[in-house]
C-alpha cells in the first residue's frame, strides 16, 4: 500500500465552528481507515472537541456525501462535520 499525505479541507458547520475555533482548516491528512482516527487527527489533542465530534448527532460528510460506513473512502478532498440541522 502506498502511503500518501493529502491536503484536505476540513469544515465545521453551524455551531461546531464555535467549538472548533474556526469554520475551516486545511490539513495534511495521512492515510487513515476509520472515522475515529479522522476525529482524533482533526481534534489534535483537544479532547473536548474530539468528544463533541464523536457524538452520534454529528454527521460526517466526505466529498459532499454523508458517511454511512465505518470505513473512510479513498480520495478524501473535503470533510465536513455537520451538527443537527436547523432546517429551512
Amino acid at each position, binding site marked *: 500500500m502506498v502511503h500518501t499525505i493529502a491536503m484536505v479541507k476540513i*469544515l465545521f458547520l453551524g*455551531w461546531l465552528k464555535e467549538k472548533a475555533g474556526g469554520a475551516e482548516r486545511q490539513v495534511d491528512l495521512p492515510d487513515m481507515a476509520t472515522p475515529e482516527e479522522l476525529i482524533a487527527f482533526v481534534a489534535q489533542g483537544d479532547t473536548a472537541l474530539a468528544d463533541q465530534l464523536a457524538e452520534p448527532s454529528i454527521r460526517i460528510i466526505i466529498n459532499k456525501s454523508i458517511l454511512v460506513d465505518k470505513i473512510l473512502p479513498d480520495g478524501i478532498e473535503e470533510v465536513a462535520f455537520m451538527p443537527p*440541522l436547523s*432546517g429551512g
Partner: protein
Amino acid sequence: MIAVQSKIFDPGAELNLFMKGRTDKGAVVSFTGHVRGGGDVTALELEHYPGYTEAEIEKIEASALLKWPGIESRIIHRFGKLHPGEPIVFVAVCAAHRKDAFEAASFLMDYLKTGAPFWKKEIRAGQEVWIEPKATDYAARRGWD
C-alpha cells in the same frame, strides 16, 4: 428547479415567471415563508454548505416529483443575514389539477423544514442563539411516511 441564494426575491414575480408560457397546468400552489420578527429577534442568519445543501434540496424535490408524477416545482431558499418581513423560502408547484399541487407544495415545505441543510441563528438584542426544528416540524414530516 431550485435556487439557493442570498439575494432577496419577489415572490409574485417568481410565481408569474414560473407559470409563464404554460398551457398544460390547470393549478398552481405557492408558499412563501417570511422571517418572523417579534420578541427581540432583530435578524436571522442562515448558513448553508454550498454544493451539499443544493444536492439535498434536489433530492427532496425529486421525491415529490416521484410521488406526484406530472407536477413541476420551483424552490428558492435564501441564506445569509435576513431581517423580519423578508421572504426566506418560496415553493411553487404546478399540476394539471389542484389536489396534486396543494399536496406536493405542502410535502415540499414539510421536508424542507426538517431536511434542508441550513443552520440558523437568531440574532436577538446582542445575543446569538442557534436554533433547531420544532417537534411539530418533525411530526408534520412524519405525516407523509
